């Protein structure tokens, strides 16, 4: 199955650029608050999916506790903002550092384990973080969470009354995640991660250092996820252990990548483009009080994808097979 760039015919060559142009002018042509919110959600979860994809999709190490890294980015940002007026674009730094260090430690502890045990450990990890966040309520606010007050637009603190600035910030973050993924995909580490995912024994016997590669992938993933956690604080103004560290969130994150296409650059975007609108539709049909309904849809889609197109829906698109690297 050879891949050749010449296979792009005239208009498909330009399609991505047209799409980008549309996305960039969209907030000015159609400034519906609701639509913009939805787009921000799509960008946000696409970015989270990209970040997860680096360790879950490329390396094939299923992290079921990834929300913990988001919490590690969110809490320091929120607390520094609230307590010391540190703006989020500075406050994210300690959060990312914590996440990267934790990723390093966790990775070295658990990456020797086989699939289900690895998944379980990451699940336990996520829950441990959540329980600790709940427990130290003097520092974190416990189950009451942390609320960031909004006193009007303050660009310094990244607080805006309108949606447009958030739209572009989130789009930029998505761009960053895509760029990092693209770099990983094309780098030696990307090849190595794929080899590890395909057959660990073979990979090791080609000189690939399993632990180091996996840990580095996790550290990159954790850093991006924590960064997005900081954005979460400045966009949603409220965090608590369940909303930023819960299993539901971890599942939603991995779902985006799995549905779209694991181990591809564009997969998570497709996943988010399907998942978020579906959530909106289900909220509309069943009322957002029935939050369970959208999760039912997630679950069914997940199971269908696993049963019928385990590498993600991108494989079903024309030309989608090219997104996976076969070399």
């Amino acid at each position, binding site marked *: *199955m*050879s891949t050749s760039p010449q296979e792009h015919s005239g208009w498909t060559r330009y399609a991505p650029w047209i799409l980008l142009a549309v996305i960039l002018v969209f907030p000015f042509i159609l400034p519906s608050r609701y639509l913009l919110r939805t787009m921000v959600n799509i960008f946000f979860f696409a970015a989270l999916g990209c970040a997860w994809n680096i360790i879950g999709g490329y390396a094939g190490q299923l992290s079921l506790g990834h929300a913990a890294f988001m919490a590690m980015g969110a809490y320091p940002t929120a607390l520094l903002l609230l307590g010391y007026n540190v703006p989020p674009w500075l406050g994210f730094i300690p959060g990312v550092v914590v996440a990267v260090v934790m990723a390093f430690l966790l990775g070295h502890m658990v990456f020797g384990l086989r699939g289900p045990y690895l998944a379980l450990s990451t699940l336990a990890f996520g829950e441990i973080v959540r329980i600790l966040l709940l427990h130290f309520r003097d520092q974190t606010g416990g189950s009451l969470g942390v609320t960031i007050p909004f006193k009007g637009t303050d660009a310094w603190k990244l607080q805006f009354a309108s949606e447009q600035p958030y739209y572009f910030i989130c789009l930029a973050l998505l761009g960053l995640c895509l760029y990092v993924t693209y770099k990983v995909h094309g780098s*030696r580490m990307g*090849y*190595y991660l*794929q*080899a590890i995912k*395909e*057959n660990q*024994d*073979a*990979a*090791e*016997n*080609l*000189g*690939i*250092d*399993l632990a180091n590669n996996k840990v580095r992938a996790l550290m990159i993933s954790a850093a991006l996820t924590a960064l997005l956690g900081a954005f979460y604080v400045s966009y949603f103004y409220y965090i608590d252990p369940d909303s930023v560290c819960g299993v539901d969130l971890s599942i939603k994150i991995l779902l985006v990548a799995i549905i779209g296409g694991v181990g591809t650059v564009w997969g998570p975007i497709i996943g988010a483009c399907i998942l978020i609108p579906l959530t909106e539709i289900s909220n509309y049909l069943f009322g957002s009080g029935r939050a369970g309904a959208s999760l039912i849809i997630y679950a069914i889609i997940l199971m269908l994808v696993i049963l019928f197109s385990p590498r993600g829906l991108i494989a079903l698109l024309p030309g989608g097979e090219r997104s*996976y*690297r*076969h*070399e």
Partner: protein
Amino acid sequence: MTNQGESANGVLLELRRVTKSFGGLTAVDNVSFSVRRGEILGLIGPNGAGKSTIVSLVMGVYQPNSGDILFQGKSLLKLKANQVVEKGICRTFQVEKPLLNMTVAGNVLIGALLRTADRKEAREQSRVIIERVGLGHVAHMLAKNLTVQDRKRLELARALATRPTMILLDEVMAGLTPTEIDQSLRLLRKLREEGVTILIIEHVMRAIMNISDRIVVLDYGKKIAEGGPGEIAHNPAVVEAYLGKKGVRNE
């Protein structure tokens, strides 16, 4: 190929009184032998004699209970498999382990990336190796669609891509036709000419008698004979070890 740290008499790999037990079973019992630079050493013995265990011990999959394994004068103990490969020893697997969802080219490329991070260079090296090994016609086929013979060739190609000083071949001839065996032997001889040292485990007697400079014979984990093919063929202990057991394929 690299040249550092060899012993004076050209010994590349040395096993010194290596013993490995699993629970109550002693798989390798006080085995010592060495492989000299540029030679082809055959390792034979009935099934269960400990041959594959020795490969695993060299590669760091297991650690010996006692004894030492030296490569270019330095101990390989405590190294992990990928570190051993990096030092210059590569193995093929008896049960092939191709990266199924990647092409032949992709598989070999991953091996080449060990020595160069530049993908263009790695791709070029892979191309050369793929042609050499005879996989040029399936270079862009997904590994999962290969025939068994081509899979074996892929194992070898991948190993070669890591530019090893020494290769451990684990039963690469099984299931090949006589013509294919001859092709493989020609390839191995060419490799030896280029300076690659080879340790080859085989059941196919014709192949191993033909290609080995020296042969080491194992039985029940112990070394029972060592010498040239001619000596080994007439060694009574060797004959008895084989005749007294099942699982010998003679061609």
